[in-house]
Structure formats: C-alpha cells, structure tokens
C-alpha cells in the first residue's frame, strides 16, 4: 500500500513537472490553458500533502487532544464547534473576493508565465502558510484578532501598526474596488442598469426575508438571482432605448459620485435592508460562477493567445508602469499572498474550528482554492488576443483616445489590433466601445464570455455572458464596499469612543452618520483622484493597494515569526521568515519606486513635478504628493514593527528575556473524533 502511494505521488510530481515545463519552456507557439490548470493542481496537491503536513507537524505541532475555543467557550453565537467542511466553505466564501480576479488580469501584461509562477509559488510557500499559521495561533489564543495578537506578542507598537495598517488598507482597498467598478461601467448603459437594479432587488430581498419568509436565506437568494438574470436580460432593451438608455449612460465622474452616495447609504441604512441581502446575493452568484468558470475552462480547454512573457517586463507596460520585479508581486496579492486574509483567519473562522488538525485543511486548503481562482482569471485574460487585451486595458493617456490612434499605437507595440475588429467585438458584447476600459474587470468579462460562449449558446449570447460576468464582478466588489465601509465605520467609532463615549455607540445615529461620512469621504477622495488621473487611476491606486496589502501580510508574518521563536521552535522560523523577507524586499523596493522613481509614470513625486512644471492642475500635483506620503507612512510603520519584532526575537534567542507564551493553557478535548 505504501509503495502504491509513493508511486502515486511520484506520478503526480512528474506530471506537474511536465506541465510546468510545457508552460515555461514553450516559445513562439501557443499552448493550451489546461497545462496551466494541470501545473496548478499538481503543485497544490504536492504542496498540501507534503509542505503543509511539515508545517503542521514541525512548526505548529497540531494537537488533536487539545480543546479549541469553539468547544471551551461555546456560546451558540460566536463560538460554535462546526464540521470542518462547513468551516472550510465559510472561510473560502469570506476570503474569495475580487482581488484574485483583477490582479492576475492586470499582471497578464507581462505574459502568462510570471503571474502563474508567482501565484503558484507565492501561494504554496507564502499565502497558504500565512493563513494557516495565523488561524492556528488565533485558535490557541481564544480566537484573538491579528491586532490583538500583535499587541500581545510584539508590544504596543505592534498593536498600533497593525491597527493603522488595517485602517489604511481598508480605505485604499475600498477606493480601488470602487474605481474598478467605475471603469467597468462607464459609458455602459447595459452594465449600469443591471448593477443599479441589484439595489432594489436587495431591498425586495430584505423585505421578503424579514416579513414573508424569515430566515429562508437560500430561497431568497435564489429568487434574487432570478431577478438579477431578468435585469441582465432587460439591460439589453435599456441600452437600445434612446431615452431610457441615456439615463444609464454615465461617465466616470457621475458613476464615482453614485458609488460614493451608495457607500454612504449602505453604511448608514439598517443591515437587513441593503447590506445583508446584497451579501447573500453576491455569495450566491460568486460560488456558482466560480464553479461554472472552472467547469468551462476544463470543458473548453481554450488556447492561450498571450505569449509566455511580453516586452513589457522592462517596465514600459501600458496597463501599469513598472518592471516585472517588484511590480508583478504587488499587483497579484490575493491569489498568492494577501495580508487581508490574516484578518479573516483571526476573525470568525478560529471560533468555529472543532479540532486543531482541521486548521490545516481550512487555512492552507482554502487559500489553495483561492489561488486556483487566480489561475482561472489568468486563463480568462490570456485567452484574448494580446492586441485585444491591450486595447481594453490601456488608458487613453497612453494609447490614445481615438480608436484608430489607439489601435495603431497598440499594433506598433507588436500586438496587432484594428479599430474595426474592436468595434465588432464591442458590438458583440453590447458595448459602445471596449477601448480604454481599464481596471481588469471588462477584460476578465470579455475573456469569460469568450470561454462560455464557445460552448453555451455561441456568439449569439456573447453579450449576455459578458454582462453576466460584469455583473458578477461588480456585485462582488460592491459587497466588499458595503461591508468594508461599515466595518471601517465600526473601527472608527471604537477609536473615537475612547475620546468621547457617545461616539463609540454604534446605534447612536449622529455618530453612525458622522463616522460613515468620514470613512466614505476618505475612500471617496482616493476614488475621485483615480477618476481624474490622466493615466487612468489604476496605474497609481492598484500599486498603492498592493503595497498596503502586502505590508499587512508582513505584519501577519512578523506576528507569526515572533510566536514561533517564543515557542522555542526557532529552527523552524524560516517557514514564515522567508516569505516575510521576500515581502519586505518586494514592498520596500516597490515603495521606493513609487515614491522616488524619476519616470513620471512610476514615481508619484516625479509625476507631481511634471504636472507642476507643465502648469497643470494643482489638485493633481497634490494628489501625487499625497500618494507618496501615504506610501512612505506605510513603510515607516512596518519598519517600526520589524525593528520591534527583531528586538523580541533577539531577546528570546539570547535568553535575555524569558519567553512568555500567550497561549491559552492546555485543556483536553471532550469532543468525539469526527469521521470524514
């Protein structure tokens, strides 16, 4: 039996190696997308079977006899011992957001190879490890949050940096998410109508759930989904109607204002009326569509049109400026490693885990699934003809505002495309134009529609699939916006409550309205800045988001390394120290470039100087200076945390300071071993 298992794993490893060789070594000829999928699945299988097992046994010492907080503190509300598959599904639904869909699409400007390698290697050695260890450490500390663990393990500086990082990343994340939606919906009456309709649909669902069928969430979500499908269908009629269509044909500034107002309403209105039903609807669509995309890719096994790597690895890319290193590694965060996940791993999930060994499947395993979503997004972007991909993702400020001019510029880069071809494509998906639709979402939607329409319905339903994909992404993103704004409001109220107690009361309307407005104004400012940016906004905001997200991952890995060293397992600290070192190098290098690079397309200060020298808008100059300051503050905060952590490590290693554990004392479990 042992021999057969050994042979099986050798076979998986060899098959994976063959797929990797095909993906990495083919030049000048197109390869099938299935090779990417096979390389990914084999890497995940080997990574899970061997590396996560090593981490579980040696680094963490998982103990099935130890009672988890869900058992010891069971209250039927927050702490509930739950089946591992249920917790896995719950955790995956919380970590899977728009990030793994958008980041890989943007990074596809370097070709399919760099992004794929980073997604696979980053996930197995970085992202999965981070999610897994933070989950376990939280389980062993009664489900404490990352900021609480940082404060306990690294001191007040650690806690303060973690708290400030969370607020910063939240604001930048919400701004960049909103910008992706704005870029996806501008001048798109069909898409705007569909997304606008999700608001009354959510209201209806809220009332239905509360008044007619209390608690029947799945039934209500299914009904909401049917209504959304009808809205997609009706959107076609709206887009063709000259009078009605005009109401839904908005430019970027109009859409930005609408989204800012929406964010405020979602934060201030009762949860049951808008936020909760939208959340359910989004989850329903999300899980279904991800599964559908996986099936579509396997069934259709499309050919990748994008080369393995493009000339833009030199930093001159039109989608965003900057060289392959370090920018590919901050552009793709969620599919490889994302600091945001550590907040989920130390949030609800640790309070549901029944047994310690299950954290391996939940923490490590769910992140592998998230990584697979990123691989699927890479496939969706790379099945497009490169000329089409660059026409969609290049801002007008780089390629040109007129279709003919943009097509000529993109063709001159070595990626042939014609204005006529793009016009036909736009017509086939029901859009006025697909030029200058930056942000990643439209390119992903076209790629997804291309995959689906090849098998399900043909070209005749390409427009429906495109708008379904667009709706899926926008719904996803707006749910992040809803929840993020509200959570940001609670965090702000919590902090302000220390200044004046009534401000901390979440139910007190003046405080709720004021703090909602403050959070919305903060991300709304960055959104507005992105909308007015001549380079399209994504060029400056997405790297800022990537840097802040990866710096939060550095905070999480600092906490994990500190706990590992204090637990006298220093010889295994490299497991978290290596990804930490990599992230520090990547993010600090990227930050340096974003602040000081003399190329105005990369460096914030250089762009500010260029705008000022040309006598341009003073606000644009200020915005670039502000971005530089925000980046610098993030770097300084993480440097402080690194210094403080290093002091803790040295003290523990030299024996100058007794290692004090903050783990909850061992209590034997009384739960019976669960089968399956």
């Amino acid at each position, binding site marked *: 039996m042992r021999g057969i298992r050994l042979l099986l794993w050798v076979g998986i490893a060899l098959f994976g190696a063959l797929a990797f060789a095909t993906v990495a070594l083919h030049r000048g000829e197109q390869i099938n997308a299935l090779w990417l999928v096979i390389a990914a699945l084999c890497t995940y299988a080997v990574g899970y079977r061997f590396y996560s097992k090593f981490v579980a046994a040696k680094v963490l010492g998982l103990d099935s006899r130890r009672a988890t907080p869900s058992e010891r503190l069971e209250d039927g509300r927050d702490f509930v011992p739950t*089946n591992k*598959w*249920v917790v896995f599904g719950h955790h995956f639904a*919380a970590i899977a957001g*728009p990030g793994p869909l958008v980041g890989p699409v943007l990074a596809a400007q370097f070709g399919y190879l760099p992004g794929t390698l980073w997604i696979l290697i980053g996930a197995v050695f970085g992202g999965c490890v981070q999610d897994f260890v933070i989950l376990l450490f939280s389980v062993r500390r009664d489900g404490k949050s990352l900021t609480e663990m940082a404060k306990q393990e690294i001191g007040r500086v650690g806690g303060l940096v973690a708290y400030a990082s969370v607020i910063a990343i939240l604001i930048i*994340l919400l701004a960049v998410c909103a910008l992706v939606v704005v870029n996806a919906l501008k001048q798109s009456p069909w898409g705007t109508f569909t997304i606008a309709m999700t608001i009354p649909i959510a209201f209806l669902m809220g009332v239905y759930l*509360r008044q007619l069928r209390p608690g029947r969430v799945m039934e209500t979500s299914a009904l909401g989904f049917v209504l959304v499908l009808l809205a997609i269908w009706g959107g076609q009629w709206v887009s063709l109607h000259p009078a009605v269509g005009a109401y839904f044909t908005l430019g970027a500034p109009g859409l930005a204002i609408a989204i800012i107002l929406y964010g405020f309403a979602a934060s201030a209105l009762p949860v049951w009326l808008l936020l909760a039903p939208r959340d359910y609807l989004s989850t329903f669509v999300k899980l279904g569509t991800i599964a559908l995309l996986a099936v579509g890719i396997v069934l259709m096994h499309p050919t990748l049109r994008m080369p393995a790597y493009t000339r833009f690895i030199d930093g001159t890319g039109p989608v965003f400026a900057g060289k392959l290193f370090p920018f590919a590694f901050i552009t793709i965060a969620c599919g490889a490693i994302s600091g945001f996940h550590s907040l989920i791993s130390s*949030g609800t999930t640790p309070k549901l885990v029944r047994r310690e060994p299950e954290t391996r499947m939940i923490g490590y395993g769910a992140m592998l699934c998230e990584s697979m979503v990123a691989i699927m997004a890479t496939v969706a972007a790379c099945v497009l003809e490169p000329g089409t991909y660059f026409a969609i993702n290049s801002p007008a400020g780089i390629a040109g505002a007129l279709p003919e001019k943009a097509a000529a510029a993109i063709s001159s880069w070595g990626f042939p495309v014609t204005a006529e071809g793009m016009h036909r494509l736009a017509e086939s998906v029901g859009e006025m134009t697909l030029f200058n639709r930056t942000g990643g979402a439209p390119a992903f939607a076209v790629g997804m529609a291309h995959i689906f329409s090849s098998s399900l319905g043909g070209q005749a339903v390409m427009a429906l699939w495109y708008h379904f994909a667009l709706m899926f992404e926008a719904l996803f993103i707006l749910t992040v916006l809803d929840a993020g704004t509200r*959570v940001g409001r609670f965090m702000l109220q919590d902090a302000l409550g220390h200044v004046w107690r009534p401000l901390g009361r979440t139910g007190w309307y003046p405080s709720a309205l004021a703090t909602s407005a403050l959070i919305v104004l903060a991300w709304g400012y960055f959104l507005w800045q992105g909308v007015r940016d001549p380079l399209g906004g994504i060029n400056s905001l997405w790297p800022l988001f990537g840097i802040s997200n990866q710096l939060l991952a550095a905070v999480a890995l600092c906490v994990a390394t500190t706990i590992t060293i204090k637990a006298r397992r220093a010889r295994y600290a490299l497991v978290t120290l290596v990804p930490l070192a990599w992230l520090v190098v990547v993010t600090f290098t990227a930050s340096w470039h974003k602040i000081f690079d003399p190329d105005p397309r990369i460096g914030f200060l250089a762009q500010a100087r260029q705008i000022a020298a040309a006598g341009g808008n003073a606000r644009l100059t200020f915005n670039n200076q502000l971005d530089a300051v925000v980046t610098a503050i993030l770097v300084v905060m993480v440097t402080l945390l690194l210094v403080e952590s290093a002091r803790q490590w040295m003290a523990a290693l030299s024996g100058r300071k007794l290692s004090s554990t903050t783990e909850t004392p061992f209590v034997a479990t009384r739960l019976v071993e669960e089968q399956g």
Partner: protein
Amino acid sequence: MKGLRILHAILREIFEESAYERFCVREGLGRGRGSYALFLRQRRVGLKCC
C-alpha cells in the same frame, strides 16, 4: 448522499440559516418575524476580503 448533506450544511452556514436556528434555540424563540428581526439586529458585519 453524505456529500450532498455536507454541501447543504455548508450552504446553510454560509447563508446564516444555521446561525438563525442556533439563535432561536439559544433564546428559546420560535421561527418568525419577531425572532428574525432580533437575530438581524445582533448580526455582525464580517469583513469581506478583496
């Protein structure tokens, strides 16, 4: 069959139907508008990842 049961349990947890059921048991309330309104009032907004 077991797989379907687990899938159903996962969906019930994700869509908070199980949480509502636990709430009713904990508070000794029956299913209905009143108890659901109370449950929603206590519902916490979880972070959604990017």
